[in-house]
């Protein structure tokens, strides 16, 4: 019965409205792809954007045969996918924790160890993805420290009803239906996606699946109702339901424990907004947003002992934003909002009690165009929090168009990431590995104090006395870029960036039990930097052929480690185990970062609908393990090997609305079971898409 209701919920709107489909022209400008909203929280032409932005449009997503957000992000300059706790994205050398992921401007929640699994996001109804590089907390608050990834769903489709089906290696099946209804007052769009895979194992002689069998359902519904010509109501829903069958083997001290069970994750997002245009120069929007991510792991070990792990993250927000065009030269936005947020987890002291935080914030941003070729944007945001120190986030950016061929952009901004619930409230003792404990900083002193009064604490480190309320981690970023279009067929962009990060929150040992088992908590201690160069090029050879490529060079380092190396107090060991002083030239900086990353794409598209492409993605070696025991990553440590992967797809879009595509991912079958669990071996797929009702 419950299943039938679910099906009805999924397809109800489709059935009821499916009969009276009307066709209305795309409401946005035809060059909609070159409109950017994320950079300024308002619609701006890409040519007037003052900060580094990458746009991925629906066409690219289709041509690449991308299904999940990870598939398309891994081929972007400056972005690297990470594995461990799902697929996260590293942006300009900063970990997944520091990039905020938005859907239509609203943040996704539900991170495990700071990583938001981007496989949660289906790409079937995406109009475009905007990536803003550089600290953007002046508009988006916490987490927008490395940048922002905003996924914008298609709200303007002219396709009334479309179905697509894709099947590939490992029994990977992906089926979608998109439908749209447009009347004078009402716009409705629905998206339904079913994804299933058997998963795969790339470890020889092991039945351990690196990716376990997964079934995902995603649906999103968008309603827009025009109350009057100047007022509309928008209501969006999104639901992702993910079931994972787990067969995990955990090895510890030679004893392997097999856990079998299931994991169930649901992600619900509800957005409602009321938008009103007072005049062409003044508009306002009230938005309310609720999202709830619930993850349940229900595992059973072979010995029969159950292991459950629950994470329930609830996030609610109300916000108002007003856009005001003061004059032709000056426009401004201002906004304010409040967030109520809470997490329940079995890794906190009680999974029944929700840990809460509230945030109030206000922001403003002003754009000044003194000359047609010169734009300056300045903004600031203030976040006031109940659980940690407040934060000011300013940003200044500018664009100077030397002439139609040359543009220079400069931006300086501050970003921050609030201490997350795990860093504040974790209460976790690992019975499987030595009974060590990790306590969140908000409760560490209290919990350890209680243990001490029970006589369970052996030693307290000086770090223990430094425990206090955590400060947000913060970064200052400078981005300088130069865009050059020597002719209409060629585009070259060079960008230099530097991020200085302070107050990094790191796990530190603060004491030990009488048994000697370690006790950890979180402290603001780290200082680091990332800096590098990015190059992007596009070349339209002729009407059918085009080439594009990108390259990133990056250097990173922990500033305290560098100070120690310079002082001569960091040592390394040679192959025979003999110690020597580490020289700065042997220091490799932060782990999991490749110095070089590049991609190249050959694209062929004809007027009669044929398309074909081949893509190369290269990543140089990266440090994974500290093997010489000095806690610093240097050339003597162990690295994952650099690799090149190759992707290709061929297809045709017929004029009657039928599209066919075949593709092969990871053609050279490159696998690295230890360091690249997210990269399966060679896979093939075939997909068919049909516009059951099209505009013709």
């Amino acid at each position: 019965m419950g299943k039938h209701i679910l099906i009805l919920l999924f397809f109800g709107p489709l059935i009821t409205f499916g009969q009276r489909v009307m066709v209305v022209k795309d409401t946005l400008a035809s060059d909609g792809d070159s409109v950017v909203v994320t950079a300024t929280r308002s619609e701006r032409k890409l040519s007037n954007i003052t900060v580094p932005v990458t746009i991925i449009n629906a066409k690219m997503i289709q041509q690449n045969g991308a299904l999940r957000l990870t598939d398309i992000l891994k081929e972007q300059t400056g972005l690297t996918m990470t594995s461990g706790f799902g697929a996260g994205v590293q942006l300009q050398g900063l970990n997944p924790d520091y990039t905020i992921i938005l859907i239509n401007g609203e943040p996704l929640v539900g991170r495990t160890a700071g990583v938001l699994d981007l496989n949660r996001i289906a790409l079937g109804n995406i109009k475009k993805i905007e990536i803003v590089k550089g600290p953007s907390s002046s508009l988006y608050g916490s987490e927008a420290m490395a940048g922002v990834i905003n996924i914008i769903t298609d709200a303007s489709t002219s396709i009334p009803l479309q179905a697509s089906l894709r099947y590939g290696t490992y029994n990977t099946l992906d089926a979608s239906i998109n439908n749209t209804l447009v009347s004078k007052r009402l716009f409705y769009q629905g998206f339904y996606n079913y994804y299933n895979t058997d998963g795969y194992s790339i470890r020889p002689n092991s039945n351990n699946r690196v990716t376990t069998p997964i079934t995902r359902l995603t649906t999103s519904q968008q309603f827009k109702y025009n109350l009057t010509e100047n007022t509309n109501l928008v209501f969006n829903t999104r639901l992702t339901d993910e079931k994972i069958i787990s067969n995990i083997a955990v090895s510890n001290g030679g004893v392997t424990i097999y856990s079998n069970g299931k994991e169930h994750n649901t992600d619900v997002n509800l957005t409602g907004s009321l938008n009103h245009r007072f005049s062409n120069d003044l508009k306002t929007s009230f938005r309310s947003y609720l999202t709830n991510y619930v993850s349940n792991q229900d595992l059973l070990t072979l010995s029969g002992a159950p292991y459950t792990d629950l994470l329930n993250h609830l996030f609610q927000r109300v916000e108002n934003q007003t856009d005001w065009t003061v004059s032709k030269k000056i426009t401004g936005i201002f906004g304010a909002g409040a967030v109520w947020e809470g997490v329940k987890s079995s890794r906190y002291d009680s999974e029944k009690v929700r840990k809460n935080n509230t945030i109030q914030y206000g922001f403003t941003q002003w754009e000044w165009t003194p000359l047609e070729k010169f734009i300056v944007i300045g903004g600031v945001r203030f976040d006031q929090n109940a659980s940690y120190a407040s934060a000011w986030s300013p940003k200044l950016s500018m664009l100077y168009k030397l002439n139609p061929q040359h543009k220079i952009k400069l931006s300086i901004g501050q970003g921050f990431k609030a201490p997350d619930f795990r860093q504040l409230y974790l209460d976790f003792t690992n019975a499987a590995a030595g009974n060590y404990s990790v306590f969140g900083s908000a409760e560490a002193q209290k919990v350890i104090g209680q243990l001490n009064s029970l006589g369970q604490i052996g030693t307290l480190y000086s770090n223990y006395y430094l425990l206090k309320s955590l400060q947000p981690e913060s970064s200052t970023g400078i981005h300088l870029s130069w865009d050059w279009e020597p002719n209409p067929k060629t585009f070259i962009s060079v960008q230099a960036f530097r991020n200085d990060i302070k107050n990094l929150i790191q796990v530190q040992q603060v004491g030990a039990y009488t048994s000697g088992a370690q006790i950890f908590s979180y402290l603001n201690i780290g200082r680091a930097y990332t800096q590098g160069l990015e190059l992007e090029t596009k070349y339209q050879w002729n009407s059918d052929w085009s080439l594009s490529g990108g390259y990133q060079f990056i250097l990173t380092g922990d500033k305290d480690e560098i100070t120690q190396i310079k002082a001569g107090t960091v040592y390394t060991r040679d192959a025979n185990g003999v110690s020597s002083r580490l020289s700065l030239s042997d220091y490799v900086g932060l782990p999991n970062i490749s110095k070089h990353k590049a991609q190249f794409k050959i694209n062929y598209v004809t007027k009669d609908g044929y398309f074909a492409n081949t893509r190369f993605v290269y990543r140089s070696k990266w440090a994974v393990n500290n093997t010489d025991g000095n806690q610093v990553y240097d050339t003597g440590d162990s690295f994952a090997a650099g690799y090149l992967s190759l992707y290709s797809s061929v297809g045709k879009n017929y004029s009657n609305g039928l599209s066919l595509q075949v593709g092969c991912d990871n053609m050279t079958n490159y696998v690295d079971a230890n360091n690249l669990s997210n990269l399966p071996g060679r896979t093939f797929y075939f997909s068919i898409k049909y516009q059951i009702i099209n505009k013709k």
Partner: protein
Amino acid sequence: MKKLFTQITFVSLLTMTLFACTKTSDTTVVNNTPVTATVKDLVADTVLGVDPKTGPYSAGKYTYYSIENNAIVSSADSATTKWDLAFLSTKILTNGGTSGSGKGGAFIYKGLFDDIKTIAPDSVFKTDAAPVYAITTGSDKGWYHYDGQTNLITPIAGRVLVIKTASGKYAKLEILSYYKGGVTLSPTASDADKLTKQRYYTFRFTYQPNGTTTF
């Protein structure tokens, strides 16, 4: 038969005396010259097997070592001052305090082996006071780092154990490896190798027989 035995005893006694003489005369000559040596694959309570329920197990016995003689000492002599260091997995005892009847002790120097020309006069030698030892136990606290992900133990680079022997003389010692063959295993080595090849110490030391703190 008895005669033969006596003869052998006599010969061996004679040899011993001769050798002892040689040694004594030798020591008198090189008495001020520090002795440097490398000890390879010193067994320290190696893993005997894996119990499916309780995990790996071993005999739980220390290996006693004399720095002065550069030789293993029988465990029958554990109550004597014949040994200077005793090894059991990652734990290292010195012959003093709660561990032995000698004058032994140690401290951990942060820096390079070759940097220690003379033990700084303000150095404080600690003595074993179980459960706290002169050579601190635990990951990152004494001589090694334990990586929970790879289950590997690596000596911390730039750590030198400055030792006071049972008789009160000085030595400096650097642990080079905890794995058989003197090479730390690769993080991707098999679990079986990680268990069976551990607890084999390779270390180098310099011992000053003349009782001074200069090497």
